[in-house]
């Protein structure tokens, strides 16, 4: 059996962190979820983990104060490639703005934009599991 994936949730909404952490754990695709209410803190954590970072999936909110989802991606872009390779990023947002959607599609680091609320079936399909 394949090892379970490690998940990071980055969202300024305490509700959404709570909901999606629970949902991910319940779904059985992971037993390890780490939540951050600030993209900046999440970035610091990734850097500090370095080589110890397990294969991970990030679910990234878009609209956040201080550093938003796209700003996070810009910073992510300058991280060491070895670190980047361990991480798969999905944007998770309630946005319906076409500019956001186009921008997310155009980004090399964002695998897809998943609409809120998160559907486990969709996520599984995107992850190929």
């Amino acid at each position, binding site marked *: 059996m394949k090892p379970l994936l490690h998940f990071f949730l980055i969202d*300024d*909404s*305490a*509700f*959404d962190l*709570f*909901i*999606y952490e*629970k*949902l991910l754990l*319940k779904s059985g695709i992971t037993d390890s979820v780490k939540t951050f*209410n*600030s993209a*900046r*803190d999440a970035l610091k954590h990734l850097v500090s983990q370095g080589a110890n970072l397990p294969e991970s999936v990030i679910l990234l909110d*878009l*609209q*956040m*104060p*201080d550093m938003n989802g796209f700003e996070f991606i810009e910073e992510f872009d300058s991280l060491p490639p070895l670190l980047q390779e361990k991480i798969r990023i999905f944007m998770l947002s*309630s*946005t*319906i*703005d076409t500019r*956001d959607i186009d921008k997310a599609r155009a980004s090399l680091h964002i695998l897809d934009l998943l*609409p*809120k*609320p*998160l559907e486990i079936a969709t996520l599984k399909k995107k992850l190929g599991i």
Partner: protein
Amino acid sequence: MSEKPITILYIDDEEHNLHSFKASFRKQYSITVTSSVVEAEEILEKNDFCIILADQRMPIMTGVQFFEKIRTKFPKPIRILITGHTDISAAIDAINKGEVFRFIDKPWDYNYVENAISHAYDIYKTREDLQQRNIELQKANEELDKFVYSASHDLRAPLMSVLGIVNLALLEDDIKSQNEYLELIRQSVKKLDTFIINIIDYYKNARGVPVVTDISFEELVTEVQATIQYLPEYGNLKMTTDIDQAGVFKSDVMKLRIIFNNLINNAIKFQDKTKPNQFVHLTIKSTPDAARIIVEDNGSGIKDSDQDKIFKMFYRAGATNSGSGIGLYIVHEAIAKLGGQIKVSSSIGEGSIFEVNIPSIHK
């Protein structure tokens, strides 16, 4: 509103024409005269005029040539050419090309000139108003744009949270934990409601007709306090007031309520729960001319780099469970509409002081 005088620049190489023009019209208009086109350009650099009158026959260049030269650089003033009969064809040509609005033939007659100036000023004023409306429309459009963008977040996000909780609750077999989910739904709905109320406040403020009445700060503050003290996030916060109102202060009570509500609510929302005695202190000093309102708290404070941005629409400082980024924007707009100012001084971890100065509205 007091009407500004009509400003006119008159260029003619014959000094006695300048003198007689000035003598005839100085009571009605604010007139600047010069006999040199070179000097006229210098004057235009420094002053704004509604109307420029120029004689056609001048040394160096003709009136039409002068207008051609200045037209792109100073497009706003309305151009009137003064000519003798011999130059009629030049004048007609200039009008057809759009270089001048009208021409006045020499020797001019008082009523004719007055009529020409008054028509020219009408056009100037209409263009000016149009430009002003354009600026306002542009601002309104930008706000609308931002609004639509934020609607996707601030209106949809709480709804999507509710939907997410419902999905999760449906997976749950344990009936007891349903209550926990219901509580989350309640909070999310509440947040959405607050945002909608804010938006309505904003539109009332932006589009509504101001109603000026006598203000009792004592009453207003009591009223605002009554609505907030039962908020769950109020906690152990201690609110003190020091209201010193001397004489009648007139203002728009709706806008003042928006200002007090948001500033005090922020002090409650961003209180520092790690401190033993959270407070918000409200000081009001009002005279018949002006009021100074100070809201001071020992909450979490605002970063230096955020202090100039917090009044912008949809800007949210801080990463914790903050607001929608519209409260202080509405406060700023309301204060601007009342002809007042707001400033903030704050340091992180210590607290914030908001100072509002607004004039009494005398009508």
